């Protein structure tokens, strides 16, 4: 037996108008199906139907899938027009719908909708939070209330339309996050790019001459960088190294944790439950459906899933501030309990306080309220004791904890008896009227109106124990008189006697089980940790080139590049690394030239940044120039001993132009060995088969 709230049939009712709306749009034959992002869910299926109709109708359907894509203005490249044909068109529509659903804009709209949809939850009384207020609303608005109920506005957070928004948002996020995750995994496993041709054009660069031969110099630099846990890639005359992949790991963690968070919330809603129980001191209860005052199960919770603990409230104490401005304010609530986790398990003692719940097998028991339960002994007209119970009275004000309650005595003879009244913990006479002056029971009094007749209980109707149905009761002719503990009231007409024997206190407990709570917490922490990681760690690259210069000495160029915008601190790291590499080479023979000779090809620099662009998700390499400009503006890199390296803007222009094709850039480079290296590199990149030591290390 599964718990199924009565929302089931409502859901089908709600679906009907959506379906008819879809039919309308199909009949109208409008080009953009559904149109609004909100109805994205139904568009997936509805769009197919519409497109099918169009494909059969005329050949002008070619623009179908692409026209809305263009209209959406999301900047994607338009695909070549799909040839007319129902199948392609359906696929096109589906692809378009999916792209719409998973777009950032849709996710934001859904998030906004979710916020808007929650508004009725705080404006209209909610069943789950305040059922009494809902009843009052029914009484006050007899025509409007059933309409609101039909729209699930009394249980907004369980409404089908709310679930639709939630699920669409989940789908949208999942559709966005999963592909992105795959891409991030790829990015995290990527090898460093090949070293740019002209290292001097990097934001950070230095160069010097050394007595070592180029191979030795590169080996030593590579060893040093590998020792610093850089990921290495080597080629003919260069070494490239990259560090900071944790940034991608952080990014990944964040995205996965985000999905896990949503999943956890869903798990809580499906397998969790909430229940309430009012427990009088000395009473015990078991966590079973019959013994709960309210039970709100998750979708897949059945009564046998409840954790079988039982609990006794030994003592409830409330302390109040006795003087000063805060007189009457509570100072402490303390519920001393005994509990056993399952039948036969050893009994343990515990204390529940406000915001300090008891945890039994993952179920949390919160203390959320308290009050008084005066005890009455009632003898009926036949002389039998027919009632000897504490009766919970509900506080109606907090300053003095004045409480109201009713007593029902259905088995009194000859007539059923009913009482309604107030309990005053500290009764004081204020100009002839009794009021409660303090919440503690210093001078408890109870005052009751008495009824006899038919309580309406024997007709099988369930009644609230806090309400007296006076329709078939007659009021007994006895004036309500405040009773102190121990005092009695004799009912007229030999109807019986009522004795106020004393009082006890009650605590109201909220029992919640949410298996998604811990996963949600872990996911949340992981998401934040991942986010911090991706903010704190930056990816940075070091490049070293060594070649025999014109004078026979080896010219070593070292370049550095921090990939993220937050590159702060990399200058220092670069300077240290460059100095170490130079020291490992036995120091510089002489300071390197301030500017780089023209035999370094600008195009290669641009190519090195190409990889950046790919990682950012751009297909084309056209915008590669952007990084170049950055490099140029960030040009004066006051790093090494060599002083600022002026970055020629002319070179940048060349870079952008040279980027068009390797052939064009290769031409002016044909002056020395480097040119050879350049073409070789390009070829290797094209085939992707370049063997390197870094490759092996990287994987």
């Amino acid at each position, binding site marked *: 037996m599964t718990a199924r709230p009565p929302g089931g049939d409502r859901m089908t009712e709600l679906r009907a108008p959506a379906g008819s709306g879809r039919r309308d749009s199909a009949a109208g034959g409008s080009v953009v199906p559904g149109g609004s992002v909100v109805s994205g869910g139904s568009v997936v299926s509805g769009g197919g139907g519409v497109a099918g109709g169009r494909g059969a109708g005329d050949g002008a359907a070619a623009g179908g899938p692409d026209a809305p894509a263009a209209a959406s203005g999301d900047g994607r490249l338009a695909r070549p027009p799909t040839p007319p044909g129902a199948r392609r068109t359906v696929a096109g529509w589906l692809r378009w719908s999916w792209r719409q659903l998973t777009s950032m804009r849709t996710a934001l709209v859904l998030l906004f909708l979710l916020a808007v949809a929650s508004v009725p939850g705080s404006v209209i009384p909610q069943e789950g939070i305040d059922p009494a207020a809902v009843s009052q609303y029914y009484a006050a608005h007899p025509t409007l209330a059933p309409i609101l109920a039909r729209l699930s506005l009394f249980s907004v957070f369980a409404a089908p339309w709310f679930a639709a928004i939630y699920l669409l948002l989940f789908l949208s996020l999942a559709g966005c996050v999963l592909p992105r995750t795959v891409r991030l995994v790829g990015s995290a496993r990527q090898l460093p790019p090949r070293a740019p041709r002209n290292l001097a054009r990097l934001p950070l660069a230095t160069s010097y001459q050394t007595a070592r031969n180029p191979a030795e110099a590169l080996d030593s630099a590579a060893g040093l960088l590998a020792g610093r846990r850089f990921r290495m890639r080597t080629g003919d005359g260069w070494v490239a190294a990259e560090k900071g992949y944790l940034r991608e790991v952080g990014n990944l963690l964040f995205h996965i944790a985000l999905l896990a968070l949503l999943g956890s919330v869903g798990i809580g809603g499906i397998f969790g439950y909430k229940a309430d129980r009012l427990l009088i001191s000395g009473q015990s209860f078991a966590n079973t459906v019959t013994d709960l005052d309210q039970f709100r199960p998750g979708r897949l919770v059945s009564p046998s899933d409840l954790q079988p603990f039982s609990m006794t409230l030994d003592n409830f104490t409330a302390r109040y501030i006795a003087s000063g401005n805060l007189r009457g304010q509570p100072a402490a609530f303390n519920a001393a309990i005994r509990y056993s986790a399952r039948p036969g398990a050893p009994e343990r003692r515990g204390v529940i306080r406000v915001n300090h719940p008891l945890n039994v097998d993952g179920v949390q028991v919160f203390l959320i309220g308290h009050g008084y339960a005066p005890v009455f002994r009632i003898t009926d007209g036949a002389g039998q004791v027919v009632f000897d119970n504490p009766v919970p009275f509900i506080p109606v004000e907090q300053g003095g904890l004045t409480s109201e309650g009713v007593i029902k005595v259905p*088995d009194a003879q000859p007539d059923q008896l009913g009482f309604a009244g107030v309990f005053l913990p500290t009764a004081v006479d204020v100009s002839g009227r009794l009021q409660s002056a303090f919440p503690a029971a210093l001078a408890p009094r109870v005052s009751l109106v008495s009824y006899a007749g038919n309580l309406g209980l024997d007709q099988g109707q369930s009644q609230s124990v806090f309400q007296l149905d006076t329709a078939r009761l007659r009021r007994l002719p006895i004036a309500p008189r405040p009773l102190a503990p121990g005092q009695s009231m004799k009912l007229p007409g030999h109807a019986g006697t009522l004795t106020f024997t004393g009082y006890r206190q009650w605590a109201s407990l909220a029992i919640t089980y949410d298996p998604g709570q811990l996963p949600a917490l872990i996911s949340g922490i992981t998401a934040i940790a991942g986010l911090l990681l991706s903010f704190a760690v930056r990816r940075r690259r070091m490049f070293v080139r060594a070649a025999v210069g014109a004078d026979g000495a080896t010219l070593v160029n070292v370049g550095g590049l921090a990939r993220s915008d937050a590159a702060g601190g990399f200058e220092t790291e670069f300077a240290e690394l460059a100095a170490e590499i130079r020291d490992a080479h036995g120091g510089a023979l002489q300071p390197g030239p301030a500017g780089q000779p023209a035999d370094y090809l600008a195009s290669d620099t641009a190519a090195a940044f190409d990889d950046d662009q790919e990682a950012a998700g751009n297909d084309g390499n056209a915008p590669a120039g952007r990084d170049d400009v950055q490099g140029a503006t960030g040009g004066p890199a006051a790093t090494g001993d060599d002083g600022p390296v002026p970055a020629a803007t002319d070179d940048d222009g060349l870079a952008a132009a040279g980027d068009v094709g390797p052939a064009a850039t290769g031409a002016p480079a044909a002056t020395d060995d480097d040119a050879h290296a350049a073409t070789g590199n390009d070829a290797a990149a094209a085939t992707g088969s370049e063997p390197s030591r870094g490759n092996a290390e990287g994987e």
Partner: protein
Amino acid sequence: MFRLPRSPRRAARATRARLACPVRQASGVTAGAALAAVTALAITGCAGGAIGQSTAASNGKSFVAGSYDTTVYAHGSGPVSPDVKGTTLTGQKLALAGYRGDVVVLNFWGSWCGPCRQEAPALAALARHFRSHGVRFVGVDIRDSPSAAGAFQRTFQISYPSLNDPGDEIALAFQSTVPPAGIPTTLVIGRTGRVAARIVGQVTYSALGRLITHVSAEAA
């Protein structure tokens, strides 16, 4: 009656005063709201929290109605009833194990529960009718006091014993198999000690009578 005027300001103060720690104002609002809900509906009449319940909003009254639902198990396929024992309202020891070989009708009830009161005459009559057929009726009185329960038994002339179970321990014993999913709930236990049927909600003379006849005809 005695209802005091409730101004919004007073309500706000009520929320504040609920909390032991005045510092936590923010959470106080929620706690206060939740408390209002609990106090308004706590111990809602009968069938407190039966599943598939319609709540206050849908029926316009502040009680939780039970879902009427009967589960019948094929002969020998029902779960084995736990050995329920305890003290009756009149102070005698009672154990279901002593009834092995008889059909046992176990009825969870409370004197405060409307549907229990309505089905009581049928149960009393059935108990008298089946007494000589090896069918034992046992009540389980939950969330009740002995004086009120005794008055109930006098009113409806209930002749069979009822276990006093204010803490609902007996319902808990059935939790993992056939949990009583509301008040009243009636279990019919076959001669082999296996549960043969569960009725959630009030029983009728004819329906329960047919069930008992059916179960008592099964081989031991």
